[in-house]
């Protein structure tokens, strides 16, 4: 059955590899979302905009002549103060109100509108296509794959592992998990909760920014890019379990594969409804997601 193996080698495998590249990027965005929810209990509706800001930041700095490899470090670092400011001066103001789920969700939603429009004002509504820093293609299993996508998968995987190690294996991570489990208890043990919250929020924002830098050469850069992307990231976080890091990784890979394969077999336009359908089903039957919450499991 030569045509079957041809299909697997030349159609399915590259599609799955593309799905993996997207998956790694979605996971980077979703990791921030899940950490912010797990720790602060905040559904960050502006998270997609940090991804867009990261991409535009990379675009602007690249135009100013900054080397791409430096951007990968510089952009996330520059995102940190933004995250700290948003957490300290906006989220914290409504955090202790009666209905903080609702008020923080609404607040970050308002922020998303403002960020999106600011990007439009500064960069215009048009789509930009940044230069690919690694051109050419590499042969994998007899198929040519753009080298940048392979690089994206590798660096994304490295960052994901690093984040997991920080959260689960370091003293800092232990403090964060303690704060997620019981903030009062953690505070009494000397954890400075305020800084943990700011730090976690900024960390999530920086990860989204990093995803923006990494994905910019693959997908186009435009002011509303965060809107589409965040839907997928939300889905991944919900399916994986709000606040679970491993859940995000597994759900991120699984769902982007579902999307990639559904695009191939059914039609790209039906891939999104299918993925959202999975999200609704998970919410109906296992709202806590497939894996437990940060600090609780």
């Amino acid at each position: 059955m030569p045509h079957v193996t041809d299909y697997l080698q030349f159609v399915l495998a590259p599609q799955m590899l593309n799905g993996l590249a997207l998956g790694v990027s979605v996971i980077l965005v979703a990791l921030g979302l899940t950490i912010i929810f797990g720790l602060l209990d905040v559904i960050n509706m502006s998270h997609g905009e940090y991804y867009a800001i990261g991409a535009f930041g990379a675009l602007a700095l690249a135009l100013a002549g900054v080397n791409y490899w430096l951007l990968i470090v510089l952009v996330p670092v520059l995102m940190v103060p933004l995250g700290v400011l948003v957490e300290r001066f906006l989220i914290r103001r409504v955090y202790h109100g009666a209905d903080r789920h609702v008020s923080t969700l609404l607040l970050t939603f308002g922020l998303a509108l403002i960020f999106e429009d600011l990007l439009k004002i500064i960069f215009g509504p048009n789509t930009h296509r940044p230069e690919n820093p690694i051109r050419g293609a590499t042969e994998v299993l007899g198929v040519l794959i753009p080298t940048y996508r392979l690089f994206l998968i590798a660096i994304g995987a490295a960052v994901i592992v690093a984040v997991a190690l920080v959260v689960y294996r370091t003293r800092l991570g232990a403090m964060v998990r303690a704060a997620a489990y019981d903030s009062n208890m953690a505070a009494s043990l000397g954890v400075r909760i305020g800084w943990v919250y700011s730090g976690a929020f900024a960390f999530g924002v920086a990860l989204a920014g990093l995803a923006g830098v990494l994905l910019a050469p693959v997908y186009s850069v435009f002011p509303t890019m965060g809107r589409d992307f965040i839907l997928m990231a939300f889905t991944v976080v919900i399916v994986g379990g709000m606040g679970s890091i491993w859940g995000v990784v597994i759900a991120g890979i699984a769902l982007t594969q579902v999307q990639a394969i559904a695009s191939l077999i059914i039609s790209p336009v039906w891939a999104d409804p299918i993925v959202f359908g999975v999200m609704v089903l998970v919410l109906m039957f296992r709202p806590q997601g497939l894996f437990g919450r940060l600090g609780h499991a």
Partner: protein
Amino acid sequence: MRDRLEISMQANHGLFAALVTAGLIFGAVASATGDVFYLRLATEALILGGLALSVDILLGFTGLLSLGQALYFGIGAYVSALVLRAAPDFWLAIGAATGAALVAGIVGGLIANRVRGVYFALITFGMAQIVARVVYNTRELGASDGLIGVPVLEIPLGPVSFSADDPLGFFLLTFVIIGLLYGAVAYLLSTPFGRVIVALKANESRVPYLGYSAWAARMAAYVVAALVAGIAGALYPMLRGFVSPELMFFASSGNALIMVVVGGVGTLVGALYGAVVLTVLKSVIGSLTEHHLIVVGGIFIAAILFMPKGLMGLVRPAMMRWLLARAEARAPRSGAVRRTTQ
């Protein structure tokens, strides 16, 4: 002696009367000056106000944050457009949209009411996204273009008949329908049934020990909200002559949420004021610059931070104090109810 909840609803009615007065004056001035643009804008604001009203039933009274209420608005709009294209009959369109919203509300309610809190918000968001994408992909529903060419409707109302193209006539009709929706919801919330809905928001876990199923009450509130959104949506193609998948997108649901928060959560009438203020604001800013989102987002955030009771919070407390004082003056002692009923 009246309960605070009754006083609160009375204050809403007072503010609604003010809105009606302003609407009538505006209608008179607009028709005297031959204005079309602002009449149609105000009509659109009221229709969107219906969607905001639906959001407030859930957020302000039941304690449920829906991020996908535009789903029912969109269903109402699409069903109305489909009916109007096949058989241009006002009541048929409204009836079909109501029926569709009822069925969709029950199905959506069965799905969404399995979960609470943030999960409810996310599941409503997900449901709306799925349906919006399905509509977006369905050629029979016009796909991404939506349904265009909805014929101008001749609306028979008893002895008189006017065209949906008549800006003043359709503005007044919309006002009456949205007013009836407001009245019906306000009435429902003032009944024993409504008290159970309000109790859900206050303390859902206690509701079963009053003898009521919290699930059934939540379900009822959800379906009522879907109906309100669906009926408001049915008016949309009559005004604009088309419907598009954007009506169901998160931007629509989010917009309605902004209207409610800016107007005042839990006041019903605040949703309508919020809709008018935001629609007019968007139009005015839109004529100056295309960046109205930044202004809307800024106002929204300012409302959350500094005006948690919204625009209505500026006048309602004073009105309630006055109404309470008046009620006390009529019944000097709290036990007076029994004496006055002799």
